Each structure stands twice: as C-alpha cells, then as structure tokens.
C-alpha cells in the first residue's frame, strides 16, 4: 500500500473517520490495528517480526526500569541489541555476507558451493529496528522511563505513517504523543494536507518523472559521458524528492491525526559542506547515528585521528544500514571521508542554516560553495545508485574522461512536468532557506494561499501521469 496509491487514501479515509469518532484510548487501539493492516498489506508474514521486536523491547524496557544492578542492566541491553541486530543480521545481511564470502573464496579457487540464501527483506525493517533500539538504549541510559502500556508501545513501533521509511522517531517524543490525548484541529488538517500535497508533488511529479531517464542510463551498456553526468545530477534530485516526499506525506498524515513527527530534511542541497549536509539530510538517521554510535565511540573527544576514525566508522555503518551491498558501504566511506577531510581542513563550525542573514557577496560565495559541494554529494549518489563495482568504475572513468564514451547523449528527456515541479520545489525550498520559516505561506492573505494550493493541486495533476514506482527507501 503505497502513499501514491488510491487504496492508501481510501484506507486513510476509513482510519480518519473512525479516529474522529473514538475516544483517546480507543483511537490508539484502532491505530495499532490499522498499522498492522497497513504493514500486513505488504506481506503479512513479517508481522511476526514486528511483534517479536516489540515484545522484546517492551519486556527489556520494563526490566531495565526495575533493575538497578549495572551488570544486569548491561545484560538486558545486550538481549535487546542481540535480538534487534540479530533480526537485521538474518533478514538483511546474512545473504549479503554469505555471497561476499563465496565470492572471496572464489578468488582463492575455493568454491564452498553453498546454496544461495533466498531471504526476502522485510519492508522497513531497518527503520523500526532502529526505532525500538533507541527506546531501549534511552531507558538503559535512564533518559526515558519505560512505558507500562504494551499496546501503546506497540503503536510506537508500528505507527503506520512512518513505519516503513521513517522518520526514525525517538520514544521520548512519540510515546508521549501516543500516551496523552491529542488535539484534533482544523489548523492541523490544513497543515497536514499541504504537507501531503507537497510530498505527492515531490514523489509523483518529480521523482517518478525523473526515474525513467536515470534508469535508462544505469541500464545502458554504453552510456555517453554527458548522459552519466546528467543521470548523476538527476538521481540526486530523484532520491531527495523520493525520500523527502515520503517523509512529507508521513508527517502530513500524522499531523492530521494530531501527531508531530520530526522533520527529516532541511533543504539538504543548500548545504555547502558535508557537516552541514548531514544536519540537513535524513536528520532522524544522522541524529540517531550521532547519539547512539558516534558519541559512544568517543565522538570528537579523543583527538584528531580518533575523531576521523569515529566519523569513518559511523558513516560506514550508516552506509551499511541502507542496504546489504558493497556500494552502500562505499557510499558510507565516501561520506565519512568527506566529513573527515572537511573536519581536517575546516575544523568544527557553528550551525549554518535557514533564515541566516548574509550580504550579497557572502551569498554569492555561498552559492559557489553550494554548487561545488553538490557535485561531491551527487558523485556519492552515483556510488549509491550503481548496480555493481564494475559500473562504478566504468561511470567514474567515463566521467573523468579516462574511458572513451560515445559522444552524443541519448538519455530520454524527463517530461515537462518534472521541470515545472523542480522549478516549484526550488522556489519552495529557497523561500524556506531564506526566510527560515517552513510555513512562510501562512502569513499570506487567504486568497493568495488558496491560489498557491490550487496551483499545487494543478501541478500534481499535471505530473501525475507518469508511471509510479515504489519509494526508494522502502528497500532499506
């Protein structure tokens, strides 16, 4: 059940109607059932995994709350880590490591002859596993009191808007939102609807419109250099619109129901360096990695080289989190390398972000840096998107001019709607970047807002004729 399917919106209409009619506790129970129906629609067999993960972390949380002995607490945390990471290891990484071992053994002339593991990846497993893990770790650190209500906890794990592709919510923000009565408001309905519309434009009009052009180049046996260059830029836009579009819809749907999900993207391509990029891109994952991996590893506390090591390790694991493939590891290494090099040359700098006031010259210089850094990010996405090491080498060689490539480009041009959508998004994100106000339009007179909404609806309809595909991040 994709957010772009009419079936999802029919499902949401039913959920919404029931939600309005029910009191708070019953709302939570109904949302839990709806979340399981939503997840079961992908593959009901994997409901058992979610239930297992929920039960383990609920029980571990309860025991941690009552346990004072440090050694026992550590053991309990170990149980949660082993179960959750064990699920990931089996369902996400076992096949990958078995195949990698087989390939490595093959290099030395040894063929283990294993049966290839045919494990189907449960959708969203990386997201809900990290979400439940954060709960247990927070309880272990005594940053959070464990919840006693199993059904509320189950809803925290399985809440359908963000179940399959995030944002990875923290228990300390989402659980209170579940436990306390929520206020339904017309304001939330308006804001949620705008977010959903924005997300649909990003996903359906832009990302799905770009996809055939990019796919054609990555499937091509002999792509031209100019095509690789455009495919690299376009994929950067595609993955941003695909993933942030999903997040916008998730946040919009949740907002309509009275939930406040965290912001996952803050105009990431306006970043001028890697540190800033990771404060703007997939914020729920980058902050998770920072809080539960980078800082426990020592963060920047152990001197320069330890900081570089920690950055590298964090990003390597962040890459591997995305998928069981070496190109994701390579992408993580690229990002870790960028962060380390940036740290080495620029040191640490303060927050840079939306709404910052600058002079014309400062803006000009910043735009140059943004454009230059975008090339590095886009190359990282080439590593991410490529189907094999050979393709990475081939594309990189062709981009660098080291491998001859046919002259004229043959990439199928994206439809007009994509260009209109990209123009609209540039204005939207640019406005937020300059004003520092995500709801800049709220101050507009009502007739102008109505014109904006109508224009967005028209734009969506204009671009909705492209073939839709699943969200890229569902595979993670």
């Amino acid at each position, binding site marked *: 059940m994709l957010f772009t399917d009419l079936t999802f919106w029919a499902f949401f209409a039913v959920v919404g109607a029931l939600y309005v009619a029910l009191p708070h506790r019953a709302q939570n129970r109904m949302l839990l059932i709806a979340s399981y129906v939503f997840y079961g629609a992908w593959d009901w067999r994997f409901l058992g995994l979610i239930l297992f993960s929920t039960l383990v972390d609920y029980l571990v949380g309860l025991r941690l709350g009552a346990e004072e002995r440090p050694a026992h607490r550590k053991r309990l945390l170990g149980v949660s880590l082993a179960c959750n990471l064990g699920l990931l290891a089996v369902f996400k990484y076992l096949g990958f490591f078995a195949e990698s071992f087989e390939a490595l053994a093959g290099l030395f002339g040894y063929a283990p002859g294993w049966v290839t593991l045919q494990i189907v990846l449960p959708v969203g497993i990386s997201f809900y596993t990290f979400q439940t893990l954060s709960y247990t770790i927070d309880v272990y650190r005594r940053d959070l009191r464990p919840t006693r209500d199993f059904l509320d906890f189950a809803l925290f794990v399985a809440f359908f808007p963000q179940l399959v592709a995030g944002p990875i919510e923290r228990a300390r923000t989402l659980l209170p939102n579940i436990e306390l009565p929520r206020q339904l408001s*017309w304001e939330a309905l308006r804001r949620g609807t705008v977010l959903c519309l924005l997300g649909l434009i990003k996903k359906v009009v832009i990302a799905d419109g770009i996809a055939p052009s990019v796919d054609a180049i990555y499937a091509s046996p002999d792509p031209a250099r100019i095509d690789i260059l455009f495919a690299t830029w376009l994929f950067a836009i595609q993955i941003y619109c695909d993933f942030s579009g999903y997040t916008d819809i998730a946040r919009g749907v949740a907002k309509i129901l009275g939930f406040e999900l965290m912001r996952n993207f803050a105009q990431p391509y306006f970043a001028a360096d890697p540190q800033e990029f990771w404060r703007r891109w997939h914020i729920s994952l980058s902050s998770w990695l920072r809080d539960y991996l980078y800082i426990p590893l020592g963060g920047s506390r152990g001197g320069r080289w330890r900081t570089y090591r920690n950055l590298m390790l964090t990003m390597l694991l962040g890459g591997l989190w995305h998928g069981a493939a070496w190109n994701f590891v390579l992408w993580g290494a690229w990002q870790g390398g960028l962060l380390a090099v940036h740290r080495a040359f620029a040191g640490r700098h303060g927050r840079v972000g939306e709404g910052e006031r600058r002079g014309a010259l400062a803006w000009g210089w910043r735009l140059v840096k943004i454009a230059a850094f975008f090339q590095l990010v886009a190359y990282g996405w080439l590593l991410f998107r490529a189907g094999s090491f050979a393709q990475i080498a081939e594309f990189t060689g062709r981009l660098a001019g080291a491998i001859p490539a046919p002259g004229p480009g*043959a990439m199928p041009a994206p439809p007009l709607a994509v260009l209109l959508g990209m123009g609209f998004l540039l204005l939207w994100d640019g406005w937020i970047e300059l004003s520092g106000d995500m709801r800049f339009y709220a101050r507009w007179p009502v007739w102008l807002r*109505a014109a904006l909404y109508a*224009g967005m609806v028209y734009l969506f309809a204009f671009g909705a*004729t492209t073939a839709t595909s699943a969200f890229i991040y569902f595979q993670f």
Partner: protein
Amino acid sequence: MRQTLRTFLLTLAALALIDLAAAGALGWAAGAGRLGGLVAYFDYGRSVPGKLAAWDEAPDAPGNLADIAWRPAQLAASAEGFAAEDPGAGPVLRAYGMSFTSNILAEAEALDPALSVDRHDGPSAPPNFTFAQFLDDRPNRRAGDVVVLGILSSSLPAMAALSNQTWAFEQPAPFTYPVFLPEGDGLARIEPVIETADEARDPALAGAWRAQLREVDAFHAPVTFGATWADASPFLRLVRRSLAKRHIARVERRIEAGELYPVAEVLPRMIAAFAAMAREDGQVPVVLLIQGRDGSDLDLLALTAPVLEREGIPYLATAEIASPSDPANFAADSHYRPEVDRRFAEALLRLLP
C-alpha cells in the same frame, strides 16, 4: 472551521479559475496551431468516446487513427493487391506486424531493391491482431512466399484486449481484433462484435460492443470510457489520464504475471500454428521478436525460445542484435533508430531463402 472552509472553497474557486484559463489558452493554441505538444498532453486525457468523436469531427487532423487498420478493409485491400500481382514475379515477403516491423522492412527494401514486400500493419498491433490477419489473409499468399509474424513486447498484454481503445488510452485506435484463448491443444477465437469503421459509428451496435468489452476485454474500465462530460475540463482530463494510466499499468502487470490472461500459453501456440499453416502452404515462416525499450516488458525471447527451437522456426530477435536497454538505440518516439533498424534488416535478409 470557518477559516478552513473558507480556504477550501477559495482553493476550489482558484482551481476553477486556473482551469478556465487553461481551457481558454489550450483552445486558443489548438485554433492557432501552436504549442502542439502541450495541447496533445492535455488531450491525451479525454475519454475514449471523446477522442473518437473528436477524430470523427476532424478526419484530416494529424494523428487521427479512426479509420486505420480495420481488418476487413485491410484484407480487402490485400486481396486486391494480390489479384494485381504478377504470379511469376517471384516470392513476396508478406509481413503481419506494426510500425516496428514496417520500419525494418523499409530498411530491408532499401538494402535489397528487388525485395517485394506486402505489409499488414496496425498501430502497436498485438499478436492477436497480427496472427488473425495472418490467418484470414491465407487466400492472398502463394507457395514460396516468406511470411513474417511481428511480435512486439510492449503489446503482449493486449492479447487480452479486443481493441487498442481499451489499452492504448492516449492513442485509442478503434480498430478491433479477436482474443484467442487456449482450447484443447489449439486456440479458440472470440470475434469482436464490431469489425469495421462503419460498425464502430453505428449507435445500434454500441451497447453490444460495450457489453462485450466489459465481458471479454481485461482492460475495459469506466475510467477510460465513462464521464465524457469531464472532457470539458483540462484539469479533469489530467486526472483521468493519470487514473487511466495507473489502471492500464495495473492490468498489464497482472497479465504479465499470468493472472488475467495466459500469455505464456497462448503465444507459443500462436507461433506454432503460424509456422504449421505457412509450411502447409509451402511458405517460409519467420518470426520477428521486437523487444521494446521498457525494461518491464516480458522477455520475448525467453517466452518463445522453446517453441521456436522445437518447431525449428527461423526468427529474428532484436534483443540479440541491439540491446533494448541502451537508450542510444531508440529515437524519441520509442521506435528504434533507422541505423538500428538497418542492422535488423540485414539480419532479416540473411534469414531469407
């Protein structure tokens, strides 16, 4: 609540204003013959009856497919041409296909001016059209002729359709063809109620035709045929186009998965029957497998290789000559580039006796 309702109503009003402005601008552009691509983009979303009516109103408009590829008319023309042929002039290459086959044959004719070609094409014609034409054109062939059956990967799902009207939403050429279903070791044939352009315009047959589409055609849906009043609004046309494309894509996926129609069973039987009849008549059968650029299409060669090998049927698979995943092989309209067609034509000529 009042504020939300006000915003909502104002948004609807703004949407209506934008739509009116778009309708006016598109009307002006169409009248002035400008912005043809944009006008077509919006027109693609008209209902099928709306598009057919527009074609009837402007028979000379470019892209009008109303009178194209009707089977009886094509067979009559074939008989006429056959009667005018000189039987002693040598074998003729008779091809049953679509624009892709036609392009390849044009290149073949350019390479070998002595080649005599007789084409029977339909726009994006599925195998049920090409096979039916092959069967029904039997009296118009001679022993020694080469018979080419063109099969296009993107048209395979249309084996569950009676007309392009139901599955080629943007260009719903109304010509019709039978649906073939497995029966015993052979194939049963369901004829369409409507077979000619005149019958298609006959209101008396419209009810029976729609009833047959509902019953037999896997693609038929109210979203493409109903609510013709919505054609007046460019916005609603966009909405219809989106819904129609999603519906058709969903049906195609189900057919390709073997759910709604047994393509994997019917296609090999068609090919075997094609080769058997051609050989019985002393003709040389050649199957032309044209893999389109859409990577999600069924793999024609994988689907037909067993029957082609078992029956020893000469074939040309475009995928073996030019990669369908290489965008450089295709023109903007998704046909192969002429230089690629030339490579196919060279391979085809090598297959000929």
